[in-house]
């Protein structure tokens, strides 16, 4: 099959959503144009399926900007197993979210704006996935951040939404600074950011005492670790890892389908995808840092999810926690398991968010028709919804069990793979030190907490009796366009879609698509063991069951506790471990103070000096003038003569003759300076 058709197909796949977004935006207020966006994403989806079925691979490079004859900034496309799988996941979830949104956003006056933003996002996300060079990834990386900004702040009239959108963009920028620094360092060493070119350099690298010898350049260990961690900063920002996880819960201000697509399934997973692409750059030391960052994130995400009252916030923290798992997996070298979890998570988490969106939508409708008003996202007002919303309930339950990690569901396969590999990694790399066992331990603990908080949400929202105020109407099931996309996503959360063997993730068919690139900087290679699999698998299942059981006992038919009645531990969880408060005091306030201080410095000191200089000039002039008038005899005449001259000058200025005066003035000054120069030179010479 010839490459040019593949090429055209990839480009069409990439640009179709962009085209849809542009058309929808340009048509503006016309109703129904959002279907164009949906159609374009569908086109993209069909192309992705076709490409995956045909199994073509492609690598293409284009020079974007020539710098010198040797160096140029290149863009490029890459189609291989990894990009095919991720691109398909992105488009599939995006298509389903587009369909869901048609119903969800139906009555919103800004529906066209919404769909064009969503199209822009899909385009940017596909851009990241299909990129061949780091510069191009960064290009789309920022665009993804921008579309996320637009969508979080979609309801811009809400101060909380515009605040959240700003926070998301800025926190992401912090990570991007590191990312860009890493790219720039690689560029300064190798003069390229093309991933293929870089990888071919790294594959033949040689390790020596002080670091690595790559392409005849001696790279010190610390520098390479620094570059790897700089690139990792981008991951920390986009994938909401500790310590930059604070933007993601606030991002829930956006419409719920947006949360499903961007802040659960795809964009936040871009960080993990990036890690997969630049994995060959990471030396073991850097990977260890990655593993710990992931573990900490997984744990604090899970802890924060425990006491939330907002239905979406629980899911947001759960996303943070699961992203932590993926990053942890990358850190322990479980490249495949991380990406596998990315894929399974995309489906079950999108299903969960869309279900929660359905609940919110339904409660909003109820709210519109009732006299008493409620917060449609607060779980305090939910309960018993399994009766009114059976399809949503089923969808939610399947996805929730997948997330909690019970066998037969996809989440079990991928999460189990991660925990097993982190255990093996701990055995391999601890060298008698027990510290590295923290990683699998945290992973297991998080699995327990996951079961607890997801069980809590399930029982609070769907079980027990309704806690809504008395009203004539009841919440109703959502329309088909919302119900079925969510249900389809839940269907994909069944383990059978990924592996015939319901207990072994390593047997999943995805293994033949997601093939880890050759990495020579790694020193440890993990040996598989049947026993570890069995023991870890059983422990995980046990912990999950315990967790769900505990949740049932604790939260069955109970509303979430009011904040002031919470125990200290629950309060810490509710306040997200006080990260926002700490950052506010440690970063935001000093930053604002600094900026105001600088403005004062500028106004008082720097500009003050300039003005003082000016005032001094005037004072001296007056003083001289006074001397002239009162002390120097005959000065009076001089002054009169001078003012006469100046008067003439001004008159001729008004007559339009000023330019010739200026010219003569300049010539005069020049002559004086020439004379001075000559005089000094003469003095030096003789």
């Amino acid at each position, binding site marked *: 099959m010839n490459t040019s058709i593949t090429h055209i197909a990839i480009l069409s796949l990439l640009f179709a959503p962009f085209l849809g977004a542009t058309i929808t935006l340009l048509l503006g207020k016309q109703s129904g144009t959002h279907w164009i966006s949906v159609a374009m994403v569908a086109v993209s989806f069909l192309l992705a399926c076709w490409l995956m079925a045909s199994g073509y691979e492609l690598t293409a490079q284009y020079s*974007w*900007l*020539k*710098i*010198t004859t040797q*160096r140029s900034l290149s863009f490029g496309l890459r189609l291989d197993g990894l990009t095919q799988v991720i691109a398909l996941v992105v488009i599939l979830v995006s298509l389903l979210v587009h369909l869901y949104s048609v119903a969800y956003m139906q009555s919103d006056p800004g529906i066209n704006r919404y769909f064009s933003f969503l199209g822009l996002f899909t385009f940017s996300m596909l851009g990241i996935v299909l990129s061949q060079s780091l*510069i191009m990834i*960064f*290009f*789309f990386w*920022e*665009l993804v951040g*921008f579309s996320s*900004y637009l969508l979080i*702040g979609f309801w*811009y*009239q*809400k*101060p909380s*939404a*515009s605040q959240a*959108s*700003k926070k998301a*963009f*800025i926190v992401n*920028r*912090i990570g*991007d*600074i590191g990312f*860009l*620094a890493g790219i*720039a*360092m690689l*560029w*300064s060493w190798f003069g390229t950011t093309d991933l293929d070119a870089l990888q071919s350099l790294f594959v033949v690298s040689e390790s020596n005492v002080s670091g690595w010898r790559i392409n005849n350049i001696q790279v010190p260990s610390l520098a390479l670790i620094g570059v790897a961690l700089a690139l990792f900063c981008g991951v920390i920002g986009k994938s909401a890892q500790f310590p930059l996880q604070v933007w993601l819960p606030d991002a829930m201000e956006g419409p719920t389908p947006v949360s499903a697509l961007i802040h659960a399934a795809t964009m936040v997973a871009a960080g993990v995808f990036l890690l997969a692409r630049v994995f060959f750059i990471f030396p073991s030391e850097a990977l260890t840092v990655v593993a710990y960052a992931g573990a900490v994130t997984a744990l604090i995400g899970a802890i924060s999810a425990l006491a939330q009252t907002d239905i979406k916030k629980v899911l947001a923290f759960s996303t943070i926690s699961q992203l932590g798992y993926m990053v942890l997996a990358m850190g322990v070298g479980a490249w495949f398991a991380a990406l596998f979890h990315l894929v399974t998570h995309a489906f079950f988490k999108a299903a969960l968010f869309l279900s929660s969106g359905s609940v919110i939508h339904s409660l909003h409708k109820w709210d519109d028709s009732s006299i008493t008003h409620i917060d449609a996202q607060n779980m305090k007002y939910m309960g018993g919804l399994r009766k009114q919303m059976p399809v949503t309930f089923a969808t939610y339950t399947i996805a929730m069990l997948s997330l909690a990690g019970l066998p037969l569901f996809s989440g079990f396969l991928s999460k189990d793979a991660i925990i097993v590999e982190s255990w093996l990694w701990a055995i391999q790399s601890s060298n008698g030190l027990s510290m590295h066992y923290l990683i699998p331990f945290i992973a297991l603990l998080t699995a327990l907490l996951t079961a607890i908080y997801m069980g809590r949400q399930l029982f609070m929202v769907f079980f027990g009796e309704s806690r809504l105020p008395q009203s004539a109407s009841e919440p109703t099931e959502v329309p088909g366009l919302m119900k079925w996309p969510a249900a389809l996503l839940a269907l994909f959360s069944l383990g059978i879609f990924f592996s015939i063997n319901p207990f072994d993730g390593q047997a999943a068919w995805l293994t033949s698509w997601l093939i880890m690139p050759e990495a020579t900087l790694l020193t440890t290679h993990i040996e598989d063991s049947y026993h570890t699999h069995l023991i870890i698998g059983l422990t995980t299942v046990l912990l999950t069951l315990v967790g769900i059981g505990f949740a049932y006992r604790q939260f069955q038919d109970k509303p979430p506790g009011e904040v002031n009645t919470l125990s200290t531990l629950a309060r810490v969880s509710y306040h997200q471990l006080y990260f926002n408060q700490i950052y506010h005091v440690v970063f935001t306030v000093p*930053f*604002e103070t*600094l*900026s*105001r201080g*600088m*403005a004062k410095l*500028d106004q008082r000191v*720097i*500009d003050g000096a*300039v003005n003082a200089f*000016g005032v001094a000039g005037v004072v001296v002039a007056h003083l001289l003038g006074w001397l002239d008038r009162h002390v120097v005899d005959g000065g009076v005449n001089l002054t009169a003569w001078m003012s006469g001259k100046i008067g003439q000058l001004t008159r001729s200025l008004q007559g*339009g003759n*000023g*330019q010739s005066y*200026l*010219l003569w003035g*300049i010539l005069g*000054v*020049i002559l004086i*300076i*020439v004379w001075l*120069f*000559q005089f000094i*030179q003469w003095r030096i010479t003789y």
Partner: protein
Amino acid sequence: MENHLLTILIFLPLLFAVVVLALPERLAGSYRWLTLTATSIQLVLSIWLFLGFDGSTSDYQYWQKTDWITFDLKALGTLSIDYQIGVDGLSILMVLLSGIVMFTGAISSWSISQKRKGYFTLYLVLSSNIMGCFIALDFFLFYLFFEFMLLPMYFLIGLWGGKRSAYASIKFFLYTLLGSLFILAVMIGLYLSVIDPVETGQRLGVADVNQVQELLRAGQIESHHLVRTFSIPAMGDSANFIPGSWLSITEVVTIDSSQFRYWAFLLLFIGFAIKLPMVPLHTWLPDAHVEAPTPISVVLAGILLKIGGYGFFRFCYGLFPEGALHSAYWIAVLGVLAIIYGGLNAMAQKDLKKLIAYSSVSHMGFVLLGLASLTEEGAMGAMMIMFSHGLTSSASFLIAGVIYDRTNDRLIENYSGLASTMPYFTFVSVVVFFASLGLPGFSGFVAELLAFLGAFSADNLIPTWLALVSLLGLLVTAAYYLWVIQRMYFGPHWVRSAKQGDKLRDLTYREWIMFVPLLLLIFLFGIMPHLVLDAINPSINEFVRQVWEAGLPYVNLTPR
């Protein structure tokens, strides 16, 4: 025609200025049409010039040289001032930018209603001199244009500006005058040191330029035969310096503060740094911007500041390469200082126009950083930042103008939720602000990216920690732009007085005409930067190569 294109570009607006002066006051309505015609022709010519520009060479193109003033100074030799003009990769983008910005400014001047004759005359004179600055290849000619640009600007700010315009304009004038005096001193020093080898050869009867330079080095040319010149190409060649003269570089010694060349570089640098403006010589800029009428702010930020940057390329770096290499570290420090200090100041401003003014200070820091790196990436980035900032800052000041036209109030705190009543204006503002903060897809991104790549690649001139610190600029820039969007455009709709709220209608046709071309260009050059950068690539490469080749023997540095 081809040969006189540049001359037409410079003097056509002057011709129109004469017409505007000649027309009686009762035809005042035609002034703006005349100005628009003149700037449109200028725009078309500059585009034509750019399209005809050969992007495969670093030579001067459309070059023209005529003797202008020749004085025989007997024993002191001959004073020669030429009318020498031409463009190369260092100036072509600035010429194109001038065409775009002056045209936009002319449309923006449509609503000027007071003293129209004076305004449009001065505007045309300004337009002519700006072009002259970028095109002149004779230092004296450049200096004339540079000075004559100052004068109309002074009046345009002072007479058509806001409440404190008298203060702002005199501050602008004195500051720039101080800078130009420094430039003048160096210009004269150069004049005394440099000969025109061709004309000197004619006096001597020697046709070969190399032979003339050989004779000069040997000191065998008698003083009265020397033809001293202001020609910039002649100044760029160290063989044209008279041995033992003020600014000669015939002896190979490491540059330090005991040499005149060191001080000459410094003076030139300060002179142009005031124009750029560089922290801490920047305080004239916020005042000038706040007081200037909208079109003049557009011209000031869009193109006048770039003369500072252009001066670095053409004069500081082009004529004193060893000074440039020697000071690279400090220039980079000043650049990073400007980026962060300007950004922090922008964040604290309450007046939208002042915020944009400080953001200009911050962006011009990238020019310094890119240049200091003395890499192809950095120099190209510096040039691209000037070009891109010309477009984005023009648009930003137009945005401030849109608000000010409607309410006479630019205080950020007096607005909220403008998106509700002015959706199109909000769209334009968000695009422009994001373009300014360097969002990929817009021209600012490529520019900043190149500057950063340059800074990181220049590890024998700029330490990595400094490059890292400069990246913080990305954060600060995002912070102040997003904050202003949040405060003014988002949130519930509110404007200080309801009466003002009534007046806040969305963009008019005239405003659309100003914004659309700018937005399209910002987008176009963001996606396809090679459209402009390929044309200047050879010149930039040659520029960097020459600075290293000519400067390296005089500094203690490891070669790149």
